[in-house]
């Protein structure tokens, strides 16, 4: 049998890699890719805790499904924003989109 720790470490790794992507990529689309990785890491955790906890309690799977919905919504709106920004400012580099600075 696989101990819970394997899943948790996998998920932590996936989360950290996603975090690195979010913090370090220049392209806004790539930042969203990183966010997807982080969301997936969370989902792995949720499902693993469902499997290794009380099986009758479906909260883990239910929340994984809700994370799916949130991810889909986030990607749709996020990419729409990026495309909208690209149309106006002709760039998708996150650091160039800095109208909100001092």
């Amino acid at each position, binding site marked *: 049998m696989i101990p819970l720790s394997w899943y948790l470490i996998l998920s932590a790794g996936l989360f950290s890699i996603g*975090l690195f992507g*979010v*913090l*370090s990529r220049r392209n806004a689309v790539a*930042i969203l890719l990183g966010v997807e990785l982080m969301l997936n890491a969370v989902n792995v955790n949720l499902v693993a805790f469902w499997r290794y906890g009380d099986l009758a309690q479906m909260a883990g799977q239910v929340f994984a499904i809700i994370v799916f919905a949130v991810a889909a919504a986030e990607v749709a709106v996020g990419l729409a924003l990026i495309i909208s920004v690209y149309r106006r400012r002709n760039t998708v580099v*996150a*650091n160039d*989109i*800095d*109208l*909100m*600075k*001092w």
Partner: protein
Amino acid sequence: MTTETLIWLIPLPPVLAFFLIVLFTNKNKALSHSVAVGAALLSWLGSMIVFFRALGVEHLGQHPFESSIPWIPTGDTWLRIGVLIDPLSAAVLFFVAWTVLMIFIYSIGYHNYGQPAGDHDHMGLPPHGATVHGHTVPSIEPMYSRFFAFIGLFAFGMFTLVVSDNLLTLFVGWEIMGLCSYLLIGFWYAKESARNAAVKAFMTTRIGDVFMLLGIAFLYSATGTLSFREIFREEVLHTLATVPSGVLGLSAAGLIALLLFIGTIGKSAQWPLHVWLPDAMEGPTPVSAMIHAATMVSAGVYAVIRMFPLLSLDPKTMTFVAFIGAFTALFAATIAVAQNDIKRVLAYSTISQLGFMIAALGIGAYVAAVFHLITHAFFKALLFLGSGSVIHGMEHGVYHTGNHKVDPQDMFNMGGLRRKMPITFWTFLIGGFALSGFPIITAGFWSKDEILADAFVNGHTAVFATLAIAAFMTAFYTMRQITLTFLGESRTKEAEHAQETHWTMTAPLVVLSFFAVTYGWVGIPEHFPVLGGLVPNWFHEFVGGTLAEMPEVLEFSIVPLLTSLGVALGGLFFGWLAYRNVKSVADDKLQIGVLKNKWYFDEAYDFLFIKSAYWFSETFVSKWMDKGVIDGILHVFGRVTDFLGSLIRNYFDVPVVNRFFGDGSAEVVQWTGKNLRPIQTGRIQQYLMLALVVFIVIGVALYYLLLA
């Protein structure tokens, strides 16, 4: 499909029809009325299936069809809503389904379906007729679809009320009907009188509804449930009957029943809240009127009948109910005698007949009240639809002569219509005789006789006498109406050119007149001479089974029988005698001011409540209280605060707050801001990094502070 599922589905088609018509089909008149009538037909079908399945169940009262679902979570319990079909609601469902279906069909003809659009018709006004090849013909109602949507919603309210198993959904249905009543009375909203009548009906019934809501709230706090079956359990009733309420020396049961009964007073237009019903005749003539006769006002009575086990616990409340009912029966009958508008007579007659039912409940005659409720619904629906048909026929005459000054609703403009409108005449006659209690053959006789017999045998002599007089007057004004409308010679040219109406209007009349006659035969008392026992008294057995203890079968007594025979036949005879030769209003000896003006109740309410409220708000509240006392106090406050304000300003605000805190802190903030500014780069990733660093630092710090 199980019966329980079917019961849930009964109210649905009309409300679906409402949304369908409002959202989609309102442009298409034929589709709209098809949807509405189809929905009514579905509900009717469901109701009939449920009714006949209910007939097949032994001891339905003990084992009714019921089903409920949790609706609103209230902490750790659920407020449940559900449906219940016991003998009472089955019987009521039967007549509601029939009358509703008939109204729907009738409305097609009444709103001139198939006629051209009017020349000058506007939304919010009755149709004025269209010119076709130089003739004026009736024109189709401009808001045809909207009407069907409204009565669809109305039917939903009524069905919901009937099938619900608890006071909450009953109240929901009740209020939906209140809303629809408002919408339908004010259907021709461009007429000021219709607007006023709508507001009046809404406000008046609202008074009753507030009390009813109080009653429901009290009941819920006392028992923790609103379901009928749970409230009517032995121990709950016992507790309610013994706990004093602290008001007027009533028990809790008495007070609750009284509050609920006040709701009924409003809904069923009992004295003193009866004023709205006659004005409600402003709605589209027969249909809205019919709604206010056969279904909605019956709902008020139905609610009291439902709560009868609770009501009967406190004798004081019972006396009050009996008094209100009997008084209303007589009082409204006296007004009806002097009315000239064909619909107003029926409106007051409705109030009076509802008084009969209420009085019957007040003396404990449960079965008699239900019986009269149902027979009355049938024949009053018939009468109202008949009067609508008469008016429609008269309007035809008006279009023919072109004299629009003639009021097609005034009975003194009619006369001799029996030859012009034979179907309407015969059905109206049947309805009128049923209302008067014409012996043996009509349904009205059996139900009214049962109330009178109950009152007499159980020793409620005062109620008996009052109701007998009222019954006499009922027969009298009914015959007066029939004589003035149908018999004799035509008094105007318009009446001469009246025409029989379309089959969609007459067919419902025929169906309803069938029930107006035969429904009485299912409730013939067992001890009635000759006829008793020929047909088993099915109604008593069936409806009586609703109560925990079957009501006793009445001993036969000759006095009430003779009385009801006498008052019915006598009233009819005198009505015919007095009016057979009346040519105009001037010949009518009963045009007494006090009756004509409805005992000046509208004026009295106007003076008592509306005028006095105006006076109170203008003179007392506005002039004295507002301008004098409150403004005076405020002025003093103003002066004092003004003085204090300048004191504080000069010696505290300017030196301390402004100079030191204000300017000083602004400088500090400005300095900080200037130095912190470079952090705000506008780059989201740097913010994220910063946030993460802070988060990690705080996390580590907390970990070591709290755990280590």
